[in-house]
């Protein structure tokens, strides 16, 4: 089955068993929310780092699909097609 790849920043990789890329089988487009649900089901702590308990993406977590940050698309309802990559990147913030 075709797959969708989720690329993690190095700081989060220990929460995914050291993996830099997670893959999710998909036979058609799926939403970013459902992808993150699948991540959380497998790696619960990682899931909580990305979204709060209301399901909202944390403020300084950016998720890119096809080069665009999902907040500029349809948010967590943005659809991802098999073969696409989803990038998780922490925003430039802090002090």
């Amino acid at each position, binding site marked *: 089955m075709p797959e969708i790849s989720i690329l993690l920043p190095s700081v989060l990789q220990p929460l995914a068993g050291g993996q830099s890329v997670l893959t999710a089988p998909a036979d058609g487009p799926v939403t970013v929310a459902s992808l993150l649900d699948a991540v959380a089901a497998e790696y619960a702590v990682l899931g909580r780092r*990305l979204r709060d308990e209301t399901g909202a993406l944390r403020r300084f977590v950016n998720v890119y699909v096809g080069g665009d940050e999902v907040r500029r698309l349809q948010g967590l309802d943005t659809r991802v097609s098999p073969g696409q990559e989803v990038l998780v990147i922490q925003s430039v913030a802090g002090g």
Partner: protein
Amino acid sequence: MVRMATAAKHLLAIGTKKGLWLATSQDRQEWSFTGPHFFMAEIPSIGIDTREGRTRILVGVRSPHWGPTVAHSDDLGETWTEPDQGAITFPEDTGAALERVWQIYPDAESRPGVVWAGAEPISVWKSTDGGEHFELNRGLWDHPHRSEWGAGYGGAAAHSIVVDPAGETVHVAMSTGGVYRSLDGGTSWEARNKGISAYFMPDPNPEFGQCVHKIAADSAVAGRLYAQNHHGVYRTDDNAENWKSIAEGLPADFGFVMLTHPRREGTAWVVPLKADGERIPPDGKLAVHRTDDAGNSWKRLSTGLPEREYNSVLRDAASVDTAEPAGVYFGTRGGTVYASADEGETFTEVASHLPDVLCVRAAMVAGA
């Protein structure tokens, strides 16, 4: 990194804006440090639970990127455990999300396993499994005053929890909202702020809305508590029914810290800051003030402290231990931590150049 001595007697935990440092000591003079733990995450709350012959360190952790969580260690920080689903998460029906854990408070010896937490948004939580899972206190969450509670500069949080070790009374302080009291173990809550000024409100004596910065209970006198307010230092002798000023004799009535002695009646410590608008020690001279008579008089304590200090001391960046004589510890937003092994008579600098100190907790290690 210095490895901790296995038979250490004293533990000092320092939560900062960029991680946690742990220090152990045999004599409260020489300290061995490990850290930073949770590097680049702030540690605004620490609870050291020494009940049942075990030393469990609980920490509220908050990353600006990855959010808040609670972790614990039973081996003095060698390893940390974080429950998969999170120790504190808001139930779905609240529509709320945890922002920051401000307080972790192990209950009395007689209630092993019970740990309380205060959080932002304003909420109180209770665990019965040593802090691994907490339940939201619905009585306070659903309180009719909630919509009128405000946010202090640091956020809207329940930051102080005081539980009567012998009964069912619980006091909570929040910024802003003031003191709330439960007589039934947390089922129902009533505002108890009579006598505490809210000078920043149109009515300076409201039922609630005060900005109480910290409360602490007198360990030897039932029903007596002390409060450091946003201007004003107070005491109650009737379980918070009435508060009266005990600020006379202090160089300033502003500050964040309120500590009480682990055993002795009438003994409390504050760290005065000049004013609301100038949050520095008065004249830049850092000093702790101690009362031994429940606030009727105060003694200035500055031996060992620097001549000039322009950093403030935050509400949880101070602690006492249970040793004899009691130890007093505090840290500044400039990253310096001071310790006294003689109840504040003399201080020594135990750490410096750390990130802003947000929380300090000290304890005697269980079983040592």
